[in-house]
């Protein structure tokens, strides 16, 4: 029985001695990690692997523990906690950074107008009851018209109309309208993300399902547009063409106007001043006179002035000249 090797193993397991390292061990306390960049000694590695690994681990762990015990601490009810710094090693995230949520149509409008969000209380004050009633749900202000036991019939109302039913259908219509607007917002958000994707079309092949879907939508839009163009390319501008099933509706171009009031009046002021400047300089006029601008001198079209003067003189001198001119025109038209 040779126990020397076992004794050696035992001694190694209970040792706290560390190896000498030429280059210092790098520690990343944020990730509880240490990196010993000294090459592994081949002699030791070949001779007794596990003992050498233990010695290496002991060395690096000791330096990691040293750096961890040097960190600031805070005491809590459950004991002392060491505050870890942010990690230095960059490891990939699991998912991309969250994108800001696209604004809804209302949110965009509110932002433009500077309307701040007002929190709606769950309950509203009822003057008649002198009590708070819920805004929606059972017994709410929202359903008052449907749930009240007596309805006032105004003069001129049809005899068979049911006020409760009308109130309900109106409420349902409001809900439907809101849902439609929500769907529109979602569609708009998808469209905008698609156009953002078109800007960075460098991702090849590996597209997520959502990206693929928005790409498909875009392609579909493109095809429909080109189909509409080709349909109007006939002599009748597509008036007598046969309709295709599921043909997209022709949508005209909507004119867009500047908002009547903006959040800040800077832009408005500028645009007004622009108009004034244009008037002062006579930008439009100069452009017009450029057609026959050969005789232009200091804003005066000399050639035109001479021509005009000549006309006036002839008119003053005798009617014959004017009549002749008119006759000439007639001849041209024929």
């Amino acid at each position, binding site marked *: 029985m040779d126990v020397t090797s076992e004794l050696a193993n035992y001694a190694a397991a209970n040792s706290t001695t560390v190896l000498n390292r030429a280059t210092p061990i790098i520690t990343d306390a944020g990730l*509880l990690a240490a990196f010993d960049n000294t090459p592994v000694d081949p002699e030791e590695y070949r001779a007794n692997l596990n003992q050498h690994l233990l010695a290496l681990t002991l060395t690096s*762990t000791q330096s990691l523990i040293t750096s961890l015990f040097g960190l600031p601490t805070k005491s809590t009810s459950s004991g002392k906690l060491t505050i870890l710094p942010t990690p230095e090693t960059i490891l990939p995230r699991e998912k991309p950074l969250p994108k800001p949520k696209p604004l809804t149509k209302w949110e965009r409008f509110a932002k433009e107008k500077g309307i701040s969000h007002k929190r709606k209380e769950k309950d509203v004050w009822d003057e008649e009851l002198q009590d708070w009633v819920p805004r929606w749900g059972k017994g709410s202000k929202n359903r008052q018209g449907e749930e009240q036991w007596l309805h006032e019939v105004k003069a001129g109302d049809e005899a068979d109309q049911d006020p409760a039913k009308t109130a309900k259908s109106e409420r349902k219509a409001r809900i439907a309208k809101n849902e439609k607007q929500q769907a529109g917002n979602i569609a708009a958000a998808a469209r905008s993300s698609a156009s953002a994707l078109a800007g960075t079309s460098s991702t090849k092949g590996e597209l997520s399902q959502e990206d693929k879907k928005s790409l498909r939508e875009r392609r579909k839009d493109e095809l429909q547009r080109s189909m509409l163009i080709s349909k109007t390319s006939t002599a009748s501008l597509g008036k007598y063409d046969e309709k295709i099933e599921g043909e997209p509706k022709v949508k005209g171009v909507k004119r867009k106007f500047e908002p009547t009031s903006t959040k800040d009046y800077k832009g408005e002021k500028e645009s007004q001043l622009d108009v004034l400047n244009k008037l002062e300089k006579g930008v439009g006029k100069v452009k017009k006179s450029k057609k026959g601008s050969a005789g232009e001198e200091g804003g005066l079209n000399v050639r035109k002035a001479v021509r005009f003067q000549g006309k006036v003189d002839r008119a003053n001198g005798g009617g014959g000249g004017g009549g002749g001119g008119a006759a000439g025109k007639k001849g041209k038209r024929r």
Partner: protein
Amino acid sequence: MSMLRTIKPKNARVKRALDKREPQLVENEKTAIFVRGQSTSDIVRNVMKDLYALKRPNAINFSRKNDIHPFEDTSSLEFFANKNDSSLFVTGLHSKKRPNNLVFTRMFDGRVLDMIELGVDDFRGMDEFDSPKSSVGVRPLMVFHSDLFDVHPKYQAIKSHLLDFYNGHALTEIPLIGGIEHVISITAGPLLNSEDNLEDEKNLPKIHFRVYTLKLISSGNSGFKIPKIQLTEMGPSIDLSIRRIQEPDEEMLKLSNKRPKLDKSKIESGLGKKKKNIETDNMGDKIGKLHLEKQDLSKMQGRKMKGLKIRPNQKLTSVNDIVIDE
């Protein structure tokens, strides 16, 4: 992903659960899935069992065989990742060409980022070591030895992968006494022959994966001194050789390495996560809201009468004082 239907939340609980799966500013810990291929060996299964034990509780073990070959087709891995909202995979395989094969896969945004394939050359399981084991959920220390982890691209990939696997989620605070139990040691061997070339795939030195439990021995009676440590091997002890490595797509890596810009105050107050029931009023005082359970009226003290008096031997357990502070 294509096989998964998009779920429209029907109630608030489902919505919360789905919102948790959305990209977060400060991410949760990555979950690992351990899945076997069509044929596995005993060794591979045991290795996976031990790696799973170390990764718990952020790990899911698939007990059935799956026809998965990560280097040929990643679609099923992507499916599993999206279904289980996890981004780390260990696939165990065994074939004549690549015996005792382990494939580590890392995902980003539901797609494969990179993969490393390692062969198990030698293995001793956790139960072969007669020593105390670390408790579940305790964060290990990780140490890497060898210059190869600093310079060689393949070893860099392995370092990044394994570090991400066990310690990727950064903690903000940890109790040093009682919060550290074990250390994972990863060592790359040296070049055994001086004429060996690192360019040749066959000559790549092995990687030794060891796990030790750690004992802190305070050198004096003062608590401020840095303690000495003692290590005991707890297993598993795995010797690995490098096989194929699929490097990450550069664009994807760039995206995945992006870090959010967080205010310092935000970091201090919960790392960008919304703190519930805590607010600060206009005077700058912190106000906490406590939700107490319904009072147990059956134990309320009513009118005292001699007949209703509680005898000392049938005393009720004392009601704990509830301390509410700001």
